[in-house]
């Protein structure tokens, strides 16, 4: 009589087959490797400031990816990770009209042992920046764009004049704007740079969602003021919220609902977020990794301008001098936690405000109002090292605001409202640092921002 029946033999044989198959699968090793879900910028015109992004199908070992990443022509920059996406943020903007080739050599691996089986490579070519701005009519404001500085203005929203404000994404592909709804609340909308794919991303109902700002890794911070609890009552104090534009998911920055603030601004590396706390009269700078907060005393109600590495900020505050309250610029260093006057030596008089650092970190544009010069402002440019060496950019008797540098740090965009004329029309001008000349870009326009 057999010790083993048919079942025993079948189980034994099948076990051997399965174990042999397992051995074969293990011996052949990884045949698929890591999947790459998306890359950007894709082929075609790309913003000179656009981060290079690679989204993997699983969590990667950062060091193994970063060591295999290369860019031709060679460009210095830093790596930032969010979830499974690697962002390469160029230290200086890419050159305009230049073709860049990104390579990720095979062998980049995950913590689980998966490797990138084949080299990943693609190219993109950079474009000249355009501009986005607001134009008001009897109905209210709409969003307009110039795809480059020579093109004709084009209206990209049709919100019955309800556009409140906007922010352009770092890669220049999308514009997030806020617009009034039927309940007098303000919703957040998203539109492509050419006016395509216009859609609501966040229905805020009675609340007012405004002042959005994009991070280099595609997140948006915005201010949200709760709607009135009863008809006729006012809006609540605003808080800072974060939004994922792709999904519309939104969460408070702080779990503590008592922390109020508005006007968020991301550091260029997305590692810090600054906003203004109107109750404590200070700028709050939040380290997004550790949650640590740094406070910069300021009574002017706006946040400052970031240095490219995100470790310093230029901001301004009022300072008493001979009984006069004058604006003075300060430099805050978050690594040393020092706050020092920006200019060395300190100017004796005049208002120095609205410092705006160029993306290269070399230049600062600022608004200057001489102490005895009446209500008119001037726009000046000075080296970012703090030497008091001003170059006049705009000295017409006007009010200036919304200063912003192009990605190459060559052109300075600003809003100008001329004084001393009847029915002044808001205008957007540009100053060319290389020639020292100014040029009117658009009349009847306000809140200009680069569309890289």
């Amino acid at each position: 009589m057999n010790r083993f029946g048919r079942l025993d033999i079948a189980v034994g044989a099948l076990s051997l087959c399965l174990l042999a198959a397992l051995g074969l699968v293990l011996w052949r090793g990884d045949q698929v490797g890591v999947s790459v879900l998306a890359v950007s910028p894709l082929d075609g015109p790309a913003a000179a400031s656009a981060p290079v992004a690679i989204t993997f199908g699983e969590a990667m070992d950062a060091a193994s990816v970063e060591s295999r990443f290369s860019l031709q022509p060679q460009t210095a920059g830093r790596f930032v990770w969010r979830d499974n996406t690697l962002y390469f943020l160029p230290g200086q903007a890419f050159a305009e009209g230049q073709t860049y080739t990104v390579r990720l050599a095979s062998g980049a691996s995950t913590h689980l042992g998966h490797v990138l089986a084949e080299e990943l490579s693609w190219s993109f070519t950079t474009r000249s920046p355009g501009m986005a701005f607001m134009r008001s009519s009897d109905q209210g404001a709409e969003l307009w764009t110039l795809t480059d500085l020579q093109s004709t203005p084009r209206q990209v929203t049709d919100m019955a004049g309800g556009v409140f404000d906007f922010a352009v994404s770092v890669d220049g592909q999308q514009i997030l704007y806020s617009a009034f709804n039927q309940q007098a609340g303000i919703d957040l909308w998203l539109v492509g740079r050419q006016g395509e794919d216009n859609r609501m991303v966040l229905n805020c109902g009675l609340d007012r969602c405004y002042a959005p700002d994009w991070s280099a890794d595609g997140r948006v911070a915005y201010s949200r003021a709760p709607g009135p609890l009863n008809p006729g009552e006012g809006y609540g104090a605003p808080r800072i919220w974060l939004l994922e534009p792709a999904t519309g998911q939104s969460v408070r920055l702080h779990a503590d609902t008592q922390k109020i603030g508005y006007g968020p601004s991301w550091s260029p590396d997305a590692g810090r977020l600054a906003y203004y706390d109107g109750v404590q009269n200070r700028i709050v700078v939040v380290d997004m990794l550790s949650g640590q907060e740094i406070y910069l005393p300021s009574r002017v109600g706006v946040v400052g301008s970031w240095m490219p590495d995100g470790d310093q900020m230029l901001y301004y505050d009022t300072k008493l001098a001979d009984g006069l309250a004058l604006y003075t610029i300060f430099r805050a260093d978050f690594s040393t936690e020092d706050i020092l006057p920006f200019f060395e030596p300190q100017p004796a008089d005049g208002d120095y405000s609205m410092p705006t650092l160029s993306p290269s970190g070399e230049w600062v544009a600022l608004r200057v109002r001489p102490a005895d010069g009446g209500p008119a402002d001037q726009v000046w440019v000075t080296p970012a090292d703090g030497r008091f060496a001003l170059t006049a950019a705009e000295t017409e008797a006007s009010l200036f605001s919304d200063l912003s540098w192009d990605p190459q740090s060559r052109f300075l965009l600003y809003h100008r409202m001329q004084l001393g004329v009847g029915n002044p029309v808001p205008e957007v001008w540009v100053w060319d640092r290389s020639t020292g000349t100014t040029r009117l870009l658009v009349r009847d326009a306000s809140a200009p921002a680069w569309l890289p």
Partner: protein
Amino acid sequence: MNKVFNILGLLGLALLLLAAFLGMQNWAVMGFALPDQFYTLSTIFLGIFIEAAPFLLMGTLASGFVEVFLDRDAIQRLMPKNALLGAVAGGLLGFIFPVCECGVIPLTRRFFSKGLAPATGIAFLLASPVINPIVVASTYAAYGWGPVLFWRIGLSLFIAVAVGLVFALQARPAQLLKPTPLIQISGASVDHPHIAPAAPGLGPRIQRALVIAGDEFFEMGRYLIAGSLVAALLQTVVPQTALLAVGSGPLLSVLVMMALAVLLSICSTVDAFVSLAFVGSFTSGSILSFLVFGPMVDIKSVMLYLQVFQRKTVLYMVWLVFLFVLLASVFINLNIGI
């Protein structure tokens, strides 16, 4: 063996009562505190038992109704004679009898007592915890209409049919089962000697089905208590974090997730949501192994299997399922990468 189960069942029952009693008392105030591990143990134990008990009840109810309303001839008539077709039919039977891994065992035993072929019965036993509308819906809710759902269904069905076909080779199917159920196969009156055969009429027949279900629930319930207690003990002694810390690589991650599935002994109706926590930190193949192996083999279901099948049958069944899931999951990790 039964003595061991009885002791474990009694221990579990004592733990249930103790946990309920402790819940009403503030022992710390009275200067008396049990070790933290005890509270962890009782929480895990209650979690597993309370989650599984309703499904065992549903399974025993289905079993009672099968006993009363489905005769042996009907089973023979409805089920395919061909072993392959029978195994496939058994694999899909969960859509008619949507039972979890606890409930499927008494029902399968009942089917065997009605003369169901081994290939069909074992395919049903292994597949129905996944191939049923409730689990398909919960997996869809967790992972959406995508590869995880398709692979879970496909792989579970394939493995169940394959293992079922292996057991079709047993020349004397009755040898797969424990002696007690074999005696029961000979007639319902032996199975429930104290229950008088039902009088004609719907009411008495339903009453009889309910009595059978009740008896079976209490019979299988002690093994569920014992299984839940062992699973809780192991989870207390071997914390999840210790397992997860070693879980990397295409092979090791699969082994870890299979071990975790056995250890956690979660019902298949909710395991998809639990597995979501591991997505991103574990390979896709290992997540799938958790979703396929867990419903077929875990501590409490193995203890229940041992009440129906011979030890060798359970050993073969668990071993083959283990090998199939391991091979498929490692293959997916290295060759498909869902």
